[in-house]
């Protein structure tokens, strides 16, 4: 209808955030509020012989000290559950405070609650724990070796699950006829999600009204449900979870952790509000990490460079306990993506999930899809080497053609729409690919010490995962629909209550644009409410690039219902047949007689006056939708990175980064571009600098910003963006999702570029992060240093 969709409307979120008025969880204070500090294990694996809290309890300002035993002795469930099950999955209990064994550095043992923040932290250091240290299993694959320490008795060999997908027989046959085989052994490095806002919780309890928990959440209803089912002793309707401003999530604020449950338990036990805010080190130690795969894969190709078969074996670390959606990430978000943008006739993937004495691993921006894309796109470059084709040509020869959609892959997914070659061509054109290759050759011929590398990554993303019945059959213990209640007020203004839960994505703006566009009401007459289980219908929240496609579509569906009911009232007021009416420009009018019309506001008022509405129609104008999509959506694109590697120092400089993305229709192009920018940087961080490093004893060596290297402003270029638009055919907005695309593409883009730069040295692969020393050694391994 209107032109509000597709417009770069400035964000309505911003005035609060640029003036310091926005309230994040730690900004909030309640009368009588106490502070909690959690005592954490310095050992990766140890038995707890005893815990002495007496000195801490006697310290200044301390109100209470509790141990895991106190929680175990209470009525509370006292555990955090896993929310995605696989066949034969081992699900050892994860107590919110450890009772007899700690299983990773950072595992909670006790909690100190005190009047002041400093007092709580001081007293936490006075809790004396007598540990019996045990050996630790640390490596995702190594943990399965004979004689390794066992993280959980019920998981022999530290295997949490052994899952596979695809047709092994067909793949084996494909390799028999192969002209070329490209193979790779790689480690997809472990990363810390690292929202700049640490996780935090402020719990307050009233015996009559229940618990109010303000927390850093990407999905308040999911947190409420899991809290009630397993962690504390309160029914769901007596818990209200509120997500105030949330300072970034990147997946880390999806999961249900012990800490927020501990704060809640303490608030209930003490009867005063309790706040817990993670320190940066706590965040690095306990936020669920991402990736951590050890993979062997082989790709079979025919003489023309056409893929015949693809086989993959991946060991995926789960960490010490199964985090909320952990089993889903390397399986259904990774294994199912193995076809990439390519028409592959045979695929088989096996994924072994392993317990390790490390922080749990779960969804982090992209969640499984960056790992899949990294593997496929590294192998496509190796396939180019094997076949002698240009990396773009081997991709082009294997693309699922634009006229082949919907396309059924060999790994369960059915791609809805796409046009991969157009995106590739646009990216090559924008980059000036031929000129770049010529420049590269010139430098190589001249023996230039500044090595030029060009990396290409053609990615696909599967997001807005659905429908619920399918994800349920795959093991999800939740539905993956989204809710939207649209309330039209008597004066015609509108409030949307959405189950999505933004933490930087700008829903207050984009969702209002959907309403304004469909109803023709001005933007300023639309408000959007999210992130409060006391106000919104049961919602699934924001992650997996799902909010526009699923949450936005739920709003669109509710608006359709509003317009349909409005039409009945309008027809009654106009004494016309409903079928003769059209809704445009914020009014209903009789087709062909535009002067015979009734304005939006008059219909809204009449809906609430109910003096003159059709028989059988209820008063009011409010509609709720639980939108369950028919399929995933499949954004895609091609990214190109141009890097310079200094052969004398191994340092990498990103000269250019070109991204052509297709997320279907764009509601707000400014916000879409912002998501791409941030997504690219997130993945570049993993490619070049970031890594969560554990030593052999399970000590986290990267628990602060001194040793965990986030991308900084001076290390990145401005990005060159363009897009194609291939609408999603199965949702009412035609949108696909863009929150993760950049992060899915950029690790492979940059790695391919760096390896390409090192080609004269015969380097075929290096694992991320591509630090200068690693590159220097790769270039100079044959020389005396």
């Amino acid at each position, binding site marked *: 209808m209107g032109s509000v969709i597709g417009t770069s409307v400035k964000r309505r979120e911003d005035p609060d955030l640029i003036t310091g008025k*926005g309230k994040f969880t730690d900004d909030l204070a309640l009368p009588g509020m106490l502070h909690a500090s959690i005592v954490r294990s310095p050992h990766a694996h140890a038995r707890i012989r005893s815990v002495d809290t007496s000195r801490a309890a006697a310290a200044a300002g301390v109100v209470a000290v509790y141990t895991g035993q106190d929680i175990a002795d209470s009525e509370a469930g006292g555990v955090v559950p896993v929310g995605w099950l696989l066949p034969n999955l081992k699900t050892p209990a994860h107590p919110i405070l450890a009772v007899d064994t700690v299983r990773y550095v950072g595992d909670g043992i006790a909690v100190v609650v005190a009047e002041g923040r400093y007092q709580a932290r001081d007293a936490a250091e006075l809790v004396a724990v007598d540990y019996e240290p045990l050996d630790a299993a640390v490596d995702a694959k190594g943990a399965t070796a004979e004689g390794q320490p066992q993280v959980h008795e019920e998981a022999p060999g530290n295997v949490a699950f052994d899952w596979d997908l695809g047709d092994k027989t067909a793949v084996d046959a494909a390799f028999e006829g192969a002209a070329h085989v490209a193979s790779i052994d790689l480690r997809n490095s472990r990363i810390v999600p690292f929202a700049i806002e640490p996780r935090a919780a402020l719990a307050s309890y009233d015996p009559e009204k229940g618990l109010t928990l303000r927390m850093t959440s990407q999905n308040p209803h999911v947190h409420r449900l899991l809290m009630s089912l397993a962690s504390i002793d309160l029914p769901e309707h007596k818990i209200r979870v509120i997500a105030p401003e949330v300072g970034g999530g990147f997946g880390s604020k999806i999961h249900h952790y012990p800490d927020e449950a501990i704060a809640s338990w303490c608030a209930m036990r003490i009867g005063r509000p309790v706040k817990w805010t993670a320190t940066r080190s706590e965040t690095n130690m306990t936020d669920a990490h991402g990736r951590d795969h050890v993979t062997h894969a082989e790709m079979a190709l025919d003489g023309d460079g056409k893929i015949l078969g693809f086989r993959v074996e991946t060991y995926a670390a789960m960490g010490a306990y199964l985090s909320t959606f952990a089993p889903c990430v390397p399986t259904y978000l990774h294994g199912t993506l193995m076809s990439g943008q390519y028409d592959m006739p045979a695929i088989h993937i096996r994924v072994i999930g392993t317990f390790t004495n490390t922080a749990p691993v779960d969804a982090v921006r992209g969640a499984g899809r960056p790992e899949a894309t990294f593997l496929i796109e590294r192998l496509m470059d190796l396939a180019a080497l094997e076949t002698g084709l240009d990396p773009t040509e081997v991709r082009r020869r294997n693309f699922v053609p634009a006229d082949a959609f919907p396309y059924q892959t060999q790994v369960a997914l059915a791609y809805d729409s796409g046009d991969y070659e157009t995106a590739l061509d646009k990216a090559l054109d924008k980059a000036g690919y031929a000129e770049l290759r010529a420049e590269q050759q010139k430098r190589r011929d001249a023996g230039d010490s500044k090595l030029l590398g060009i990396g290409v990554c053609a990615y696909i993303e599967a997001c807005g995962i659905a429908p619920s019945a399918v994800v349920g059959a795959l093991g999800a213990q939740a539905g993956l629909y989204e809710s939207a209640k649209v309330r039209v007020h008597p004066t015609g203004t509108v409030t949307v209550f959405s189950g999505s839960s933004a933490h930087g994505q700008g829903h207050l703006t984009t969702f209002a644009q959907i309403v304004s566009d469909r109803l023709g009401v001005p933007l300023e007459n639309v408000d959007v409410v999210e992130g409060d289980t006391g106000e919104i219908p049961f919602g699934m929240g924001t992650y997996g690039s799902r909010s526009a496609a699923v949450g936005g579509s739920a709003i669109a569906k509710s608006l359709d219902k509003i317009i349909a009911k409005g039409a009945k009232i309008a027809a009654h007021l106009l004494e016309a047949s409903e079928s003769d009416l059209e809704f445009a420009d914020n009014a209903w009018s009789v087709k062909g007689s535009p002067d015979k019309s009734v304005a939006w506001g008059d219909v809204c008022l009449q809906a609430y006056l109910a003096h003159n509405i059709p028989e059988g129609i209820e008063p009011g104008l409010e509609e709720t939708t639980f939108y369950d999509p028919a399929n995933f959506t499949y954004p895609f694109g091609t990214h190109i990175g141009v890097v310079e590697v200094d052969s004398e120092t191994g340092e990498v400089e990103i000269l250019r980064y070109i991204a052509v993305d297709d997320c279907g229709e764009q509601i707000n192009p400014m916000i879409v571009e912002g998501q791409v920018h*941030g997504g690219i940087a997130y993945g570049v961080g993993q490619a070049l600098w970031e890594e969560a490093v554990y030593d052999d004893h399970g000590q986290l060596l990267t628990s602060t910003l001194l040793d965990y290297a986030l991308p900084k402003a001076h290390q990145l270029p401005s990005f060159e963006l363009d897009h194609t638009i291939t609408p999603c055919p199965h949702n009412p907005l035609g949108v696909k999702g863009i929150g993760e695309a950049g992060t899915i593409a950029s690790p492979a883009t940059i790695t391919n570029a760096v390896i390409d730069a090192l080609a004269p040295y015969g380097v075929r692969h290096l694992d991320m992060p591509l630090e200068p020393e690693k590159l220097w050694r790769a270039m100079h391994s044959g020389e005396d240093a």
Partner: protein
Amino acid sequence: MGVRINLEVNGESYEREVEPRQLLVYFLREELGLTGTNVGCETSLCGACTILVDGQAIKACTQLAVQADGSSITTIEGLATNGDYHPLQQAFWDCHGLQCGFCTPGMIMAAADLLQRDSSPSETEVRQALKGNLCRCTGYHNIVRSVMTAAEGGS
């Protein structure tokens, strides 16, 4: 055992007794209620807590409140004048220079420090000046654009 300090924050004078070990950022947040200045790392590495002390950008998470005795402080809450946004606030809004907004106050204060010293920085200079302020959402692209836009508008 408190220590008495006098200081000016956003044009208002305050006299307070503080614990000697209290960090300036918690003094601002918890004593004065100025929660716009955020804490991201407590080690002066992320820059979320950047404020101006006597006109210079500092990280308030590694300075003690007692060290600020006698100084004049500007936080994000004091940047607008008579209800008009500072050019940087306006530019961050216009250029989509923020997403979750958690790093934004510190980022704007660090940029304000830069523009006081150099009213027309190059892109490279902006990126260098902001390397002590981390943002996880924007990839810095639009932050840099915001600062360049504010500089152009102000010159």
